[in-house]
């Protein structure tokens, strides 16, 4: 029998704890002795291996798995607090059908049979007419290879996960520049880095691996520099803290590049061998190919070979490519090396440190010194490993030489409307230094790098309603032809991803789906299906508006958004807005896979993936969401989920994990494939696969041989191996994109060239933001004039003990931080007459909130900040009404808008990056004012309580 290994320990009781008293703990079956299960944590998105101890039928202790490649035995506060998830009062217990008005919290408990019948009938009807009227948006799941495949087979383009408001700027900039990305597809070389630059990383992305890595750097005396407006978390232990003004990191990076160019301290050999720096860019202003790479008749990119004084294939071995100058192409047009365009741009006076210092809030001398330090470490302290390797040109190298400047960047870069270009600027800096996948620098996590831009174009509807999409719903457009737009150039997707408003929205725009569904109405949306995403609270840019739109009705009293399904393990603020609630299990109660088809646990040392196993058996009437989606797919008879006769192919997710094949021999898990369990990456399904994972501690890793560990984009042994394992389709080298030709293709369309043109109203916008070289512009929200009314930047970050966590209501974690403050610089506070613990109004263009102030010195002078997702809505998360999260907690989101200033309605632009659609949370500007002394002792706004009121034991109406 497949998929049902023997490790399930039935009926395990809640942990011993004061907090467990009085809760509905799982009942105990006789289980006298001690036992251990290895599984994967899900208290955040890190995917650490855990060892779960059970004793006398109780969940006794969770610790890190010492053999696991992600956390090597350590475990963060969230992971250790996971033991309290088993007794969380917020756990949902039964399927629910709404009986009161949306948002009232009034539900009726129904059976799974009825819940499945309701959802299946609804989805079947949608699929028969217009499958895109189902929008499936998932939150922090690690099941995107399943949910995305479901959406594809269902035939809806309206699918995305949470990356649109998290890190799509990092993913897109990375995939379009280097074929990898910070965090998910890359990591610093902790072993050899001598200088580590952290941009916009506070406590996040990721958790334990960065902490482990920082300790290794510290042990070697490497220098850590943190560019961040706020000095907490990782910034607290940095050797240098640079309190950059939010949204100006791109300018700062340009200034560093300016200094390096000025001093001639860049790695030109790296550039011509591994990037497109020498590719000739057509200089034909006004022409249809202006700014594209010049190619010969065979389609090869051209360079100018100084050795022969003639044009040559840019990929030819041994040529001496020009990086400066202007050359004449055979057709008489002129062309210039991409590098020449780059050097000209960043050497301009506007990017000199002295020119950006004030705006960035960083002294020019500091920028110049940091540039010197970067150059010193990169070029005077190279790492030389005695490890021979062969490059893609066939050259045998006796050593691996690296530039030990490692960079990691995340949320503080990502959550701005200029984040895509800022992230690309950082990748350009890395390329100029030769610090991509070399010893001591930033490295790819297997299975990356991928050929740029790192994925197929997004799938589109084809054929009759209900036919599968042509490809997965999320993908990487390479030009205007890949956009999902109608004949007028307007968006096909509800959230307008892959439209001219957000062409490279490779993760979708989750933050816009409610607003756009509300605008579009029942013609374009029937069912909004959310999994594990708190869209009516902290995952909404504007919770007040989201709630209003979810509850809005038309003249006939029908809901504007006809049907809302929420699948979740906990009673979040969003559950009250569902028409149907599908209660999920916790992470300790289900099978899961952390797949190479999604976001695995690979590292620079090789590919890896992992599973979760059910350690507890829920006594609640809940089911794993993955089992539910597979059952729905089976009932609907979707391709790959049902056979030709319409019979379901899989009885559970565990069954699917083992037997599903995405392509021949490639399935959700890459390890222990084939009949003998020896297949790596490729191989027939192995009925014993889950058992093998369990025996191996819940994960699988493959260690690349030392020859393959660096220069993966051009390391022939690596490329051949990656192809054999199914990670890439071709073993051709991956040319890093200093200059981004796909961006120029969009720009040309905006200038009126080609068959696919943007609507007139968007042309100037596309022309401006699709620059093939990184640009900097003031965050869009701030570009609008407010007459200086909102002079302060406002940002949020989650505390380390709750980062990425679905459990900030956890009995132990909330003892650490149950309420939040608005933090500001002491000097600013003095200027505004604000003292510690004063109540202040925080006002933005879209509203105001009331919070308590706390002063500090480790913060940018013009920035205020707070801890995110502490404030909760009264009645949610199983907390009592008096909980401080309700009374003294607040959510900065209440003063953020999902639209740009003065815009609302269909024509309005979302408050997002114009390239990727990334939610621009961190663009917010505010003003602060001390409240009157008699102000009530609680935060504002306070939304009314809507705890779940569940009618049980009644026959539900059909």
């Amino acid at each position, binding site marked *: 029998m497949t998929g049902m290994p023997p490790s399930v320990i039935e009926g395990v009781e809640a*942990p*011993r*704890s*004061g*907090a467990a008293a009085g809760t509905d703990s799982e009942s105990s079956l006789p289980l006298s002795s001690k036992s251990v299960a290895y599984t994967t944590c899900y208290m955040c998105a890190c995917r650490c291996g855990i060892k779960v101890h059970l004793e006398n039928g109780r969940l006794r*202790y969770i*610790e890190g798995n*010492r053999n696991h490649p992600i*956390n090597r035995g*350590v*475990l*963060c*506060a*969230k992971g*250790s*607090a996971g*033991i309290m998830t088993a007794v969380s009062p917020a756990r949902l217990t039964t399927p629910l059908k709404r009986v009161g008005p949306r948002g009232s919290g009034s539900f009726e408990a129904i059976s799974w049979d009825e819940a499945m019948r309701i959802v299946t009938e609804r989805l079947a009807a949608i699929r028969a007419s217009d499958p895109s009227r189902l929008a499936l948006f998932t939150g922090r799941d690690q099941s995107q290879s399943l949910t995305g495949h479901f959406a594809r087979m269902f035939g809806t383009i309206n699918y995305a996960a949470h990356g649109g408001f998290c890190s799509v700027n990092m993913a897109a900039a990375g995939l379009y520049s280097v074929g990898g990305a910070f965090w998910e597809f890359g990591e610093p070389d902790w072993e050899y880095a*001598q200088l580590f630059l952290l941009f916009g990383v506070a*406590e996040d992305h990721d958790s334990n691996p960065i902490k482990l890595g920082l*300790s290794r750097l*510290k042990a070697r005396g*490497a*220098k850590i520099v943190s560019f961040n407006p706020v000095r*907490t978390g990782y910034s*607290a*232990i940095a050797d240098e803290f640079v309190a950059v003004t939010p949204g100006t990191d791109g300018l700062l990076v340009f200034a560093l590049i300016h200094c390096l*160019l*000025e*001093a*001639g*301290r860049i790695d*030109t*050999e790296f550039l011509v061998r591994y990037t497109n720096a020498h590719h000739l860019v057509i200089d034909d202003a006004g022409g249809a190919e202006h700014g594209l790479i010049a190619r010969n008749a065979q389609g090869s990119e051209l*360079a100018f070979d*100084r050795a022969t004084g003639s044009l040559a294939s840019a990929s030819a071995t*041994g*040529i001496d*490519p020009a990086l400066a100058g202007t050359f004449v192409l055979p057709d008489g047009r002129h062309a210039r090396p991409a590098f020449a365009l780059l050097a000209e741009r960043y*050497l301009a*006076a506007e990017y*000199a440190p*002295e020119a950006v210092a004030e705006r960035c809030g960083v002294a020019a001398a500091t920028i110049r010194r940091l540039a010197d330090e970067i*150059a*010193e*470490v990169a070029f*005077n302290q190279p790492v030389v490993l005695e490890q021979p390797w062969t490059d893609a*040109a066939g050259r045998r190298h006796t050593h691996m030489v690296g530039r030990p400047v490692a960079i990691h960047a995340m949320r503080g870069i990502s959550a701005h409307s200029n984040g895509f270009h800022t992230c690309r600027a950082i990748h350009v800096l890395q390329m100029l230094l030769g610090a991509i996948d070399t010893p001591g620098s930033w490295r790819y996590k297997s299975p990356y790098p991928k050929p740029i831009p790192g994925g197929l174009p997004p799938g589109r509807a084809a054929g009759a309603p209900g036919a599968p999409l042509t490809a997965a719903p999320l993908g990487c457009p390479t030009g205007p032809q890949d956009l999902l737009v109608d004949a007028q150039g307007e968006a096909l997707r509800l959230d307008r991803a892959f439209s001219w408003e957000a062409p490279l929205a490779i993760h979708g725009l989750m933050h816009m789906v409610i607003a756009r569904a509300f605008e579009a109405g029942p013609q374009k949306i029937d069912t909004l299906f959310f999994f594990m995403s708190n869209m009516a609270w902290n995952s909404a840019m504007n919770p007040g508006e989201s709630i209003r739109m979810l509850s809005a009705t038309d003249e006939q009293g029908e809901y504007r958004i006809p049907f809302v399904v929420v699948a979740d393990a906990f009673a979040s603020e969003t559950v009250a807005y569902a028409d149907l609630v599908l209660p999920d299990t916790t992470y300790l109660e289900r099978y899961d896979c952390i797949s190479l088809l999604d976001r695995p646990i690979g590292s620079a040392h090789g590919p890896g993936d992992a599973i979760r196993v059910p350690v507890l058996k829920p006594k609640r009437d809940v089911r794993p969401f993955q089992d539910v989606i597979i059952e729905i797919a089976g009932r609907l008879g979707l391709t790959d989920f049902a056979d030709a006769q319409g019979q379901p192919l899989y009885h559970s997710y565990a069954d699917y994990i083992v037997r599903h094949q995405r392509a021949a021999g490639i399935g959700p898990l890459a390890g222990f494939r084939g009949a003998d369990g020896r297949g790596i990456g490729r191989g027939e399904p192995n009925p014993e696969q889950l058992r093998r994972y369990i025996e191996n501690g819940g994960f699988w890793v493959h260690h690349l041989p030392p020859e393959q560990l660096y220069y993966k984009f051009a390391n022939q042994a690596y490329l051949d191996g990656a192809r054999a394992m199914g990670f890439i389709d071709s073993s051709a080298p991956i040319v890093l994109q200093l200059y981004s030709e796909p961006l120029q293709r969009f720009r040309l369309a905006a200038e009126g060239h080609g068959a696919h043109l943007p609507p007139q109203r968007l042309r100037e916008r596309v022309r401006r933001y699709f620059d093939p070289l990184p640009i900097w512009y003031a965050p869009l929200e701030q570009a609008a004039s407010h007459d200086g009314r909102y002079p302060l930047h406002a940002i949020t970050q989650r505390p*380390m003990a709750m980062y990425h966590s679905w459990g900030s209501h956890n*009995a*132990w*974690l909330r*003892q*650490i931080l*149950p309420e939040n403050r608005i933090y500001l610089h002491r000097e600013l506070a003095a200027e505004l007459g604000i003292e510690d613990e004063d109540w202040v109004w925080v006002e933005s263009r879209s509203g105001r909130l009331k919070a308590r102030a706390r002063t500090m010195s*480790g913060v940018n002078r013009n920035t205020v900040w707070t801890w995110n997702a502490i404030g909760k809505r009264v009645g949610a998360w*199983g907390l*009592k009404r*008096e*909980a*401080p999260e309700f009374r003294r907690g607040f959510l900065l989101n209440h003063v953020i808008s999902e639209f740009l200033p003065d815009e609302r309605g269909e024509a309005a632009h979302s408050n997002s990056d114009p390239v990727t659609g990334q939610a621009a949370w961190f663009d917010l500007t505010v003003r602060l004012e001390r409240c009157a002394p008699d102000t009530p002792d609680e935060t504002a706004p306070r939304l009314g309580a809507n705890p779940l009121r569940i009618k049980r034991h009644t026959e539900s109406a059909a």
Partner: protein
Amino acid sequence: MTMLPQRGTEARKMGLVIDLDTCVGCHACAVNCKEWNTGGEAGILPDYDPYGEKPDGVWFNRIHSYETGTDGCARTVNFPRSCLHCENPLCVTVCPTGASFKRAEDGIVLVDTDLCIGCKLCSWACPYGAREFDEQSGVMRKCTLCIDRIYDDSLPEAEREPACVATCPAKARHFGDLADPDSHVSKLVAQRGGTDLLPELGYRPTNKYLPPRRAQIQTAPRETCGAAGQGIGGALLRLLDKALSR
């Protein structure tokens, strides 16, 4: 009053060395400590009002983050606080029942809750605030240095360390015998200038804290280069003139 054991200079001094240079203030140690101990020999570490107005409970270890210094020297310091297992623990000598005691063999300070009458003299005597009163059972509680882990022969040797040390993601916590000059922890203290907390009080804490440090990069004096804004100039031109081999 409770007597301290006779301990020779050779007696083992088991304790922690906490590196303030790498502690990121993540609370991992505190939560894993609570998790291990609430289900272990130490007995339940209660939570009061866990889902209500004043969520609090007993913790053997708490983390405090604060700012220190001004301007260029300013830092944010994350400071984990737990029992320091002092050589001269007033918390023991003030105990009227013998409930608080220091072990002769390894110097660990413990509370025998069967003897504790909940008078709280010990917590008043501890200048480090390391003891916590258990409101539910009316007895004093404190860090045991995980004696039910460090001496558990059924665990692999590498795992016989306190939970806070095993779990610390930043590897900022170290465990060992501070009486042994050759131990890993003693060497760390010697190399890094490990210090006592409030040494002037004379409690002679066993646990030591390693101070924050600052890594620096020395650079050669900068070459003067072409004026900014002049396009490709001096140094870069010279670099670009060099022959390359793709």
